[in-house]
């Protein structure tokens, strides 16, 4: 059984952004690392590795689609314990909508071949759309199992998972192949080992591009990103409540009743 984990490179959670001519750029002066593994994908990489450790997966392939620099997230995935990596490197990917992005991932999964379980994070912190796992599943003709908080069993060509929804938990069984998206409750991601990092840095990672995958790059967004802009600051200055604690809480409760939020 081969497992593919989809990993995206995103801006770090502490990055600061600017927009010029509708083009977004970012930096992270604090950490010096403006780009990171999408935090939600750390759980998907970990779960992929556990598929090998606990459910007999023969290979765990880390897949990313993004610019050349996105190879970093594959090295991190290898250092954690993925057995292989695959990079679709193309600058055109950045301008694609989720639907076309999923087409790229699907073509790559097909090229990798024979994958029975595809694992994604529940969403990426840049767009926060959370729709790619289902789009990918439809492209591949696989069953989507989203918001998975536990993989209970994988045997006899089927998988049983626990899904976390607003209402509670749902246990679902489906035949393989499936696309699973995972939530943070599923595991505690490991840190890469020193040996793992050394091996990952030396690994030769297969790279392809959109043309070689046979995916059209032009006209590949059904969504028009009209304008991107910084949100307006919240209206009004903060009103600091003064006096002793009794005065402060009384004044606060007065304000909250006036605002009709109590």
């Amino acid at each position, binding site marked *: 059984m081969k497992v593919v984990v989809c990993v995206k490179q995103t801006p770090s959670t502490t990055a600061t952004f600017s927009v010029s001519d509708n083009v977004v750029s970012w930096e992270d002066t604090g950490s010096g690392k403006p780009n990171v593994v999408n935090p939600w994908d750390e759980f998907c990489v970990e779960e992929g590795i556990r598929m090998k450790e606990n459910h007999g997966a023969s290979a765990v392939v880390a897949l990313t689609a993004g610019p050349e620099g996105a190879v970093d997230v594959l090295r991190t995935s290898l250092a954690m314990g993925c057995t292989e990596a695959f990079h679709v490197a193309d600058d055109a990917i950045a301008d694609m909508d989720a639907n076309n992005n999923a087409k790229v991932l699907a073509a790559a999964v097909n090229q990798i071949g024979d994958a029975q379980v595809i694992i994604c994070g529940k969403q990426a912190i840049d767009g926060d759309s959370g729709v790619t796992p289902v789009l990918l599943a439809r492209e591949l003709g696989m069953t989507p199992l989203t918001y998975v908080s536990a993989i209970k069993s994988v045997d006899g060509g089927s998988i049983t998972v626990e899904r976390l929804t607003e209402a509670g938990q749902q246990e679902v069984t489906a035949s393989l192949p499936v696309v699973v998206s995972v939530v943070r409750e599923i595991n505690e991601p490991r840190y890469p080992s020193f040996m793992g990092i050394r091996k990952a840095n030396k690994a030769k990672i297969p790279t392809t591009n959109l043309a070689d995958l046979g995916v059209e790059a032009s006209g590949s967004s*059904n969504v028009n990103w*009209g304008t991107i802009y*910084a949100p307006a600051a919240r209206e009004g200055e903060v009103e600091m409540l003064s006096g002793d604690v009794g005065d402060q809480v009384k004044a606060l409760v007065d304000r909250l009743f006036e605002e009709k939020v109590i």
Partner: protein
Amino acid sequence: MSGVFVYIENAGGEMASISSEALGVARGVAADLGSSVTAVVIGSGVDGVASAAFDLGADNVIAVDDASLEHYTASAYGPTVTQIVGDGGADVLVAGASTEGRDISAWVSADTGAGLMADAIGVKVDDGRVVATRTVYAGKLLADVSVPEGLQIVTTRNRAFPPAESTGGSGAASSASAVEAAGDAQVVGISQKESGVSLTDASKIVSGGRGVGGPEGFEPVQALADSIGAAMGASRAAVDAGWIPYDHQVGQTGKTVSPDLYIACGISGAIQHQAGMRTSKVIVAINKDSDAPIFGLASYGIVGDLFEVLPALESEFKSRM
């Protein structure tokens, strides 16, 4: 039929609150387009939800009521919604951006090629097309997006829009049959969440951060929350320290919330935390450090020891409610 379709979630025989918000958005879009709202309701025993949709202003309701659809799976519901939206010639499909709504919107988008505007916090109509405002990079930026051609799919962020108001409308739902499921996913077990206020649905939230000092520091936070019927949230620092479970975490890698009232206790207001709560209507910050970034976002601030302020605030609320 054409017009604006809205996917309504069935939450145990009642309309999910996020679907009422989506229905309100659908009504607004339909009014601007001069067209009608068709609600799509799927499940087993959905009469109540169908009636609620009429009452909240749907012009038409299409109900798929089938014992085999008692439990939601994307594989069973997705093909049916796709079929209904296609048969109806929908111009717009609105759904709530819940776990289910995200699944369904993505399914329809994949199968029809329609553009998807996910997680809208604002929706308007411009030149006959929907323009959705959505956050990107955890709300550090906003984007106005649109779908130039064909079916437009938009999902609405929880609590970003008011629930639809009752029109007193009623009607008979037209029934449609379920389309064969794509694949064999079967729900084999269900466990309902314990009752209590869900963080993302809450109209009031009291959150604690590093400043509470330890697990026992959440006791006054919980007591304050209980006194006003609020849900309890937490910052990542408090969750990472193991003081409170992850499902309370508000922020970029936790829950995004948008209550009427957010009281931040001992939370400095890191940018990742702000990402999860900055759209709250009224924000109160209680912190001993007057330079904490949370005060830059707050409507009201109290500088003080939260172990004095919180109990005092709790008793003030209790004496006046």
